[in-house]
């Protein structure tokens, strides 16, 4: 009889090392640890920012000092000591390159290990990349092609210098400085990130893609992303992350703001694979992200995320459906294994008439992990004929993990239609035996079942990302299945 049981599989999963756990030795220019006004000013100065930006940061810092770290999420962790973190780290060798030859070879080797060599990416049809290592953009490609269409795709630091009007108008307009503890912190100390502007009526001809990566031990990463789709434009934006294996916990508190003006559409896809900690729950990234989009009239924003990493995830990509007939979508797969904890979901705020939102959330828990869906559907009093459909499915592997669902529904308008469906299932021995009997071994069977479970969301990802996401799901859960 077969010797490979579910218990063996579980053991294999626990002992499986983080695939991308390596550390790149690049000289970094790091600020002293701790956080005070001087540090905030120093960050702004290092980045050569205009004084209005420095003031903006200082204001955020003042707000942050008065706030307290939230405790309502279904996660348990040792709170980071914000005075023991260095808030700025950039590769100190040349920060900007005209060609790949000038890039630190170690950095290139890192990309190769990640399987995202820029070289290859450049050749791959239609993917432009703004690569962020720690905090400063080191390579931006495809700029010329985008320039011709009037599309701006650059680091947020560049945008602050070159497009101050857009930045002044939109930064903090969707996620205000005082929105929450981490958003305030990010506003004060954000290091870098991406900026994207699509002009009126322009359909962005390629998927815009950014790879983030935490690299310096003990450095928090505070990314700031701002995407503006002007009237009638379209853009698909991909964000992927992978962090090297570190012992101490790393803090990641990003802010992403999307603005879809009238008749515009933004597709924002994320594959998140930060270091989740080892099989005993040691180490791993704390991921506290604020992502929110604003839809004007007839606009559409869809968030798609595949979350496999981080020790602690706190993340709710949301849509404010301000304009009439606007549409918000949220498609999510969250995988937790070992001691990972994820509290993730979305908020759909219906303000306009005939606004529609769809939420598809798939949680997969294994090991001793805890996976929570937390969602809010809010229909305001003046939003007539608003509709929402939510579906939250949980899949459990083994019997030591947990799946939780916290759906909040607030309806203040009688014409609203809100539907919520939820299921919880377990990968059953019967399912596995059924596959075995057809000649499919247990590992492959689990991959098949997981992919079937996640299909609705995987289908929403752009092709090149869907393959990577599928691979990540298998790596996170099935040991050697490739």
């Amino acid at each position: 009889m077969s010797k490979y049981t579910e218990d063996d599989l579980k053991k294999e999963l626990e002992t499986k090392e983080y695939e991308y756990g390596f550390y790149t030795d690049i000289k970094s220019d790091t600020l002293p640890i701790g956080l005070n006004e001087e540090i905030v000013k120093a960050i702004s100065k290092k980045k050569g920012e205009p004084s209005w930006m420095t003031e903006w940061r200082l204001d955020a810092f003042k707000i942050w000092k008065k706030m307290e770290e939230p405790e309502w999420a279904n996660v348990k962790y040792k709170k980071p000591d914000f005075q023991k973190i260095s808030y700025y780290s950039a590769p100190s060798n040349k920060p900007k390159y005209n060609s790949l030859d000038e890039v630190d070879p170690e950095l290139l080797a890192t990309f190769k290990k990640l399987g995202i060599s820029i070289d290859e990416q450049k050749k791959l049809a239609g993917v432009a990349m703004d690569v962020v290592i720690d905090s400063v953009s080191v390579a931006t490609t495809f700029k010329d092609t985008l320039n011709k269409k009037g599309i701006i795709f650059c680091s947020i630091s560049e945008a602050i210098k070159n497009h101050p009007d857009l930045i002044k108008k939109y930064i903090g307009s969707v996620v205000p400085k005082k929105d929450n503890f981490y958003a305030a912190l990010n506003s004060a100390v954000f290091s870098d990130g991406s900026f994207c502007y699509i002009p009126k009526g322009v359909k962005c001809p390629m998927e815009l893609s950014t790879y983030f990566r935490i690299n310096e031990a003990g450095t928090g990463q505070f990314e700031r992303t701002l995407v503006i789709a002007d009237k009638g434009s379209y853009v698909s934006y991909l964000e992927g992350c992978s962090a090297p294996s570190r012992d101490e916990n790393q803090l990641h508190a990003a802010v992403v703001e999307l603005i879809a003006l009238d008749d515009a559409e933004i597709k924002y896809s994320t594959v998140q694979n930060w270091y989740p900690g080892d099989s005993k729950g040691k180490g791993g990234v704390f991921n506290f992200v604020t992502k929110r989009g604003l839809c004007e009239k007839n606009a559409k924003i869809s968030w798609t995320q595949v979350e496999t990493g981080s020790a602690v995830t706190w993340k709710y990509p949301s849509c404010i459906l301000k304009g009439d007939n606007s549409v918000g979508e949220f498609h999510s797969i969250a995988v937790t294994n070992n001691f990972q904890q994820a509290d993730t979901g979305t908020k759909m705020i219906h303000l306009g008439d005939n606004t529609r939102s769809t939420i598809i959330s798939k949680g997969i828990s294994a090991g001793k992990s805890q996976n929570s869906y937390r969602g809010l559907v809010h229909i305001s009093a003046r939003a007539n004929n608003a509709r929402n459909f939510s579906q939250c499915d949980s899949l459990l592997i083994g019997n030591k993990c947990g799946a939780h669902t916290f759906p909040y529904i607030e309806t203040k308008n009688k014409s609203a239609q809100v539907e919520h469906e939820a299921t919880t299932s377990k990968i059953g021995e019967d399912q596995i035996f059924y596959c075995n009997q057809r000649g499919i071994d247990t590992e492959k069977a689990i991959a098949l079942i997981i992919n079937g479970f996640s299909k609705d969301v995987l289908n929403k990802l752009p092709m090149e990302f869907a393959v990577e996401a599928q691979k990540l799901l298998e790596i996170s859960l099935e040991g050697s299945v490739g």
Partner: protein
Amino acid sequence: MLKINNLHAKVEDKEILKGIDLEIKAGEIHAIMGPNGSGKSTLASVIAGKEDYEITKGEMLFKNNSIDELSAEERAHKGIFMSFQYPIEIPGVTITNFIKTAINETRKARGEKEMPANQMLKLLREKCSMLEIDRKFLSRSINDGFSGGEKKRNEIFQMAMLEPTLSILDETDSGLDIDALKVVASGVNKLKTKTNATVVITHYQRLLDYIIPDYVHVLFDGKIVKSGNKNLAIELEKKGYDWIKEEINN
């Protein structure tokens, strides 16, 4: 092809099979009948290699080699197929994807290359028309929301695609109306060759009106207590299982 000698098996310390002897040759159809709880489904599961069961005595030889230590998938790779009494649902996985994975995993285990897509497509079409299955059926998730008849038909379709040497049909007639029963039975008959063999496990004689067995065995309390030809099934239908019980007790 399959030779079972004095097979004893237990589940959680409860002995269910208490000395089964059975020989099945290529080209034969065997029916195994018996009342509820006599061990019919257990026998099917033990042959297929379900892990819940432990063989305590005896052995199973398939093509002269012991299969007792093989995993369920290894037995499948050797050509053993079981049609489930209660086929399992796998949401989101289409029949096409499932069967493609099953065929290619089997080929891989046998050291063969994956089946080329065009060949796979041709085979799917061929078997669909043979079993009178609408090809739209193939895009549905495995057994998800299927009727009883659809589930069983899907089992026979997979059997047709995998072309096993030995097929064990566990209570294939349960939950089927007479029309569905005829369709399934005709599928089984079409798949019959001189080189494969079929074991039909059933409560009732009615399935055997459509799948004519060469041998009928009666299983009672973990043992085969009577064997005969198809007339034995008819006799059982008439007299019920009590008749056998009495015969044993006397």
